[in-house]
């Protein structure tokens, strides 16, 4: 296996929510993503842009209507239920809501130990030892194992969730808004903990957030989602310094900097209106209804991703780099290059 082979390779993933009468309306449309081993990839986007849905599709918690999810060389969409269950030990998740992501009826010991019970044959004592070690790793103490989630603050719960996700030493951690619900000071505590742990264990991480500050803080690369599609993906510093897609530009310009001197001099790209209904999206470039730079072509033609200045951008107005030799949207190219 070559080292350039990404740990997670998502191609053309389309996911939707089933409606009562069998009609499934896609909410995530044909997205491509790569996560290399040891890398943190952040996904940002407005509420409703399909971040969580994409993640659910990747983790096979929702069936994909199209596309492939290659994880560690295997296409998860083609696995049987049993194979998939076994595969899950290498792919763990943390969720946004620290209050509902732990079963209130279970002790911390059992919640954190649940992956061990499902995936290993440890006996109760071994499990306890493992859980306690893991709890200590996230800064909790042994006696916390016998308590119930209700007795912990949001930040502590999120630590517990991290312990649970990392206890099996997965290869990939998916964190869906793992710090969004936390208070400023707690958020930073958890962020630092997470950063240290994944660095320590060499875990790759798919980090979903809507907070651009957090992205810059933790991510190696960033993917910007709009209305179920990835409009721009590239190295974080590159994208933040030179955003190419008009939506990325608008998003970044709307982010506030806690320094009035800087902030009050920033230009703001104004976006009109709200996100369109994701189940009934506009034709052509999905962003054209709000894009300040819209041209006629945008209204009819769907832009393909092109490589430009180190990032992949889906916009007609972006000129591709002349030396870009592959189209990341085409799995063939990816495969042959490996």
């Amino acid at each position: 296996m070559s080292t350039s082979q990404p740990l997670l390779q998502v191609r053309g993933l389309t996911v939707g929510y089933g409606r009562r009468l069998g009609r499934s309306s896609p909410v995530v449309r044909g997205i491509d993503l790569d996560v290399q081993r040891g890398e943190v990839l952040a996904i940002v986007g407005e509420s409703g842009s399909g971040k969580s849905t994409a993640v659910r599709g990747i983790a096979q918690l929702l069936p994909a209507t199209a596309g492939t999810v290659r994880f560690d060389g295997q296409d998860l969409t083609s696995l049987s239920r049993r194979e998939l269950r076994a595969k899950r030990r290498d792919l763990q998740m943390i969720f946004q809501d620290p209050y509902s992501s732990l079963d209130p009826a279970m002790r911390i010991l059992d919640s954190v130990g649940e992956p061990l019970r499902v995936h290993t044959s440890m006996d109760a004592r071994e499990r306890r030892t493992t859980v306690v070690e893991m709890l200590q790793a996230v800064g909790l103490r042994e006696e916390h194992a016998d308590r119930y989630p209700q007795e912990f603050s949001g930040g502590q719960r999120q630590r517990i969730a991290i312990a649970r996700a990392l206890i099996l030493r997965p290869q990939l951690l998916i964190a869906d808004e793992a710090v969004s619900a936390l208070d400023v000071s707690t958020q930073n505590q958890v962020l630092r903990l997470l950063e240290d742990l994944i660095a320590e264990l060499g875990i790759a991480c798919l980090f979903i957030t809507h907070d651009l500050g957090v992205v810059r803080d933790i991510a190696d690369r960033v993917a910007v989602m709009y209305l179920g599609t990835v409009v721009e993906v590239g190295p974080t510093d590159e994208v933040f310094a030179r955003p190419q897609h008009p939506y990325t530009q608008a998003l970044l310009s709307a982010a506030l900097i806690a320094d009035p001197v800087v902030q009050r001099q920033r230009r703001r790209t104004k976006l009109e209106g709200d996100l369109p209904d994701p189940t009934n999206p506009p034709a052509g470039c999905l962003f054209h209804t709000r894009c300040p730079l819209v041209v006629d072509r945008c209204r009819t033609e769907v832009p393909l991703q092109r490589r430009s200045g180190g990032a992949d951008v889906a916009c007609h107005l972006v000129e591709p780099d002349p030396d870009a030799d592959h189209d990341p949207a085409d799995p063939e190219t990816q495969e042959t290059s490996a």
Partner: protein
Amino acid sequence: MGETLLSVKDLSVEFRVGGSWTPVVTDVSFDVARGQVVGLVGESGSGKSVSCFSVLRLLDQRVGRVARGSIEFKGRDLVTLDDRALSDVRGNEIGMIFQEPMTSLNPAFTVGMQIAEVVRRHRGGSRSAARQRAVEVLDMVGIPRAAQRIHQYPHEFSGGMRQRVMIAMALAVEPDLLIADEPTTALDVTIQAQILDLLREFAADLGMGVALVTHDLGVVADICDDVVVMYAGQVVEHAECFDLFARPRHPYTAALMGSMPQVDGRGGETVIPGHPPLPTEYPAGCRFAPRCAHVRPACEAAPIPLLPTVTGSSRCIRVDELALTPSRPAAEVAP
């Protein structure tokens, strides 16, 4: 700045916790003048909302009460005003918008009715005139096709739109003062930008005073003239906006700035250990002392008074000796 509209002095609020009255907010003071935007910042639970609600006496009287202090609005003390007169002030001279746009509108009535209602309550006039006004203000806050949308119900609006409806409702009778309790927290950044622009406009154009509650220093940096930083039910620092960011004079303010990651790469390096105390366990001395990197034994001995600074005040006994600096940009960011 214009005349002072609202003057909160030494406000203390108590809540009934397990049978006894516990002080939750102590000695909070701040002023809002015409055309001025005053920011109240602090982490969750620091008493920002409670302070705001006290102004209009919106606390549930069975569990919360103003224990001390005065709240003067245009010369009248709202704490002692009788109910009838107070309800004439509410919504009329002081408008209010809340943190949760999703739940702050009544789901059972149309948006138009909810706006028209406040117009008729305070301005009188016919039903159709009130409806006309509703269309006007909705238009003003940038809701397209306002004439049709007044017939719709809140659930047919997105979060950002609802917050705009709330603002429209508050502005329908052109109040002198607007109290906005975290109006953008639940919204996306692009929508947040729109709402902040709206507030800025109204403050400037109508000469309205705004008390803006937030936990986001970015919002403060963007729009506020004066800033009140709250921690554990107290004002820990009060300063003019630029001055605050240039030179924070309370360790908490500085730590807050350092712990918030910014898009330009600064922030995020400071970890404030532990978490804020609950009202029942406020320390006797400096309430931030247990988490403070600059703590001295004297900090924990006795309550710390607000000490005057150049543009405001700080509740730190080391205010003069500490040289706190905010972090500087660490990376390039698109302008």
